[in-house]
């Protein structure tokens, strides 16, 4: 056996060990991610009594019972709550993504005085905690009688510096100015260029941000709980909190887990719809790579 063969065998062995370690880490991370979902599904099949009894990995038989209990609970209206949440989350996601992309495009494609300042000012907003900004916002809403109004939960989402930053970075990576210029020469006005040429090129980034903003808004408890007081306007997170804080005689953990399971279904559906666009690289082939 010559030295080369020994070296190559050593290298293969080392590579195999590294791969095994990597796969073990990935497997642990995957289990950690999926474990909470698994537990949610298991717990939604268990009765309140069984849940009080402690932790188990084996499903029980109370799935339908929990579903019926949650659906028929008089203190909450699940279909209404899900519709409310969906309306707010979908509109917030659309507004935040579209207007952030538009802002990012403005900063990316145009040269104007104060451009750098505008960019850094928007980014600086990221460091302000949303709770700090919300305190003033809630006061204004109460002063002007704007509580119980969905617009107050949708419109603030338009100013989303995180989405703006993501879109700006994505544009820098994939959007050559020649395409914008080609559209200008072709006779397209600036707004038409953005809507018909630029937005389709940003599909993967838009899909990612739509999912993120949809999920963030769907799970948002803080602002809706402060601004929505009418029961018919309440969203899913408020209703879940309501179920959890029910008095001892009505408290049913099985019902709570079932509602949480139902609550994540729309998010899963939205993810499955947009997932295709994330993977699809629509921009390939537009310019010389």
């Amino acid at each position, binding site marked *: 056996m010559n030295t080369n063969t020994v070296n190559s065998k050593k290298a293969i062995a080392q590579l195999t060990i590294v791969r095994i370690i990597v796969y073990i880490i990935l497997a642990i991370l995957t289990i950690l991610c999926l474990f909470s979902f698994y537990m949610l599904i298991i717990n939604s099949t268990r009765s309140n009594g069984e849940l009080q009894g402690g932790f188990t990995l084996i499903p029980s038989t109370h799935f339908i019972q929990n579903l019926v209990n949650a659906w028929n609970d008089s203190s909450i209206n699940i279909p209404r709550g899900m519709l409310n949440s969906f309306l707010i989350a979908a509109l917030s996601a659309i507004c935040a993504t579209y207007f952030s992309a538009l802002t990012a495009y403005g900063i990316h494609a145009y040269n104007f005085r104060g451009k750098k300042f505008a960019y850094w000012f928007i980014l600086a907003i990221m460091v302000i905690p949303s709770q700090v900004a919300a305190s003033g916002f809630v006061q204004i809403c109460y002063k002007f009688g704007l509580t119980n109004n969905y617009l107050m939960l949708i419109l603030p989402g338009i100013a989303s510096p995180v989405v703006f930053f993501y879109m700006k970075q994505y544009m820098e990576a994939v959007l050559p100015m*020649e395409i914008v210029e080609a559209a200008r020469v072709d006779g*397209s006005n600036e707004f038409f260029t953005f809507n018909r040429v630029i937005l389709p090129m940003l599909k993967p980034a838009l899909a990612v941000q739509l999912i993120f903003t949809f999920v963030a808004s769907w799970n948002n408890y803080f602002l809706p709980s402060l601004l929505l007081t009418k029961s018919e306007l309440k969203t899913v997170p408020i209703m879940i909190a309501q179920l959890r804080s029910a008095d001892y005689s009505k408290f049913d953990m099985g019902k709570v887990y079932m509602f949480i399971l139902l609550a994540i279904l729309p998010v899963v559906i939205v993810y499955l719809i947009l997932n295709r666009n994330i993977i699809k690289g629509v921009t390939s*082939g537009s310019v010389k790579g």
Partner: protein
Amino acid sequence: MARVILKDIKKIYPMSGDQKKKKAKGKKTEHKTGNLQITDKGVVAVQAFNLDIADKEFIVLVGPSGCGKSTTLRMIAGLEDISEGDLYIDDELMNGVAPKDRDIAMVFQNYALYPHMSVYDNMAFSLKLKHMDKKEIDVKVREAAEILGITEYLDRKPKALSGGQRQRVAIGRAIVRNPKVFLMDEPLSNLDAKLRNQMRAEILKLRQKINTTFIYVTHDQTEAMTLGDRIVIMKDGYIQQIGTPQQVFDHPANLFVAGFIGSPQMNMMDGRLIKKDGKYAVELPGTTVVLSEEKQARLAANDVAEQEVIVGVRPEHVILTDSGYRGTVEVSELMGSSMHVHLTDVHGKDMVVILNDKKDFDKFTTGAQIDLTFTPDVVHVFDRTTQKNLEW
């Protein structure tokens, strides 16, 4: 079809924040950084640009990177503001007019196709924006596709096409509009050498078919020579020479043009311009060449005195002789029908000689000494200080 006039065009890019800070600190700002001049107003990318482009003329702007050729083209397109000067298309002042209202079409270096649209939609995009009838759009797109040989790809997306096919689509997108002026910004520089030659011929054919005014930007002197009715050679934002390909090749205005046009580039030798029996001659170590009558007349008309000069001779105009300007062979490149011999002359400068006679090919091994001379009508004489051609 249109006449394009550029009058005293100047482009200044305003100073960046850092440059302004330097200025505020009292540092001198009127200087040259790299190629371009920097003044108090900013970086001067193009200046004193005067050009009258005739209707249906094919003009090529050529020069090295950063010379201002693309900036000039973009000013014509309306994609850059004109800092000073006037631009006329068909006698209409175009300075403040938006690109879409200039009736121009442009082909970009990296195609700039809309990736989410099919080839057909890419080509039809501008016509749809004009609210043209669908049937008319279809006729125009198919006609253009036929000219460019891309009919079979009309339903494909750009990513499913090769580089050459994409560039054809980009050209197709421009020709469907039947524009007054056709602008092309280095359209072939992303293609490989073989495809570039093929597309060059296609552009020539296309020009005959669509017969409009072309303004073409390239850094490739071969493209400039083969495509242009006239060539505009630029350097550091200034026009160096305007002329037909033959004019700029035969009578370069200065040392830069002489070196830029022609491949391999012109040989430059240190020599002396003398008057011998009342006639101008160039004196080089080992040989003296009395210039042709035509050159005599031009130099006399300029009242050129005896002086140290740079003598320029193209590699294809060098003649082998028994005793003359001596060089030592460094390497030889066999090109098939000819041989390029790289030499070092007596002053240690590099020279290239092109030999076409196959009988000579074996003689030039590394280290061999050869003697050269030059025919009187192809020797160029440049001022050592100004680098201008003394015949001009």
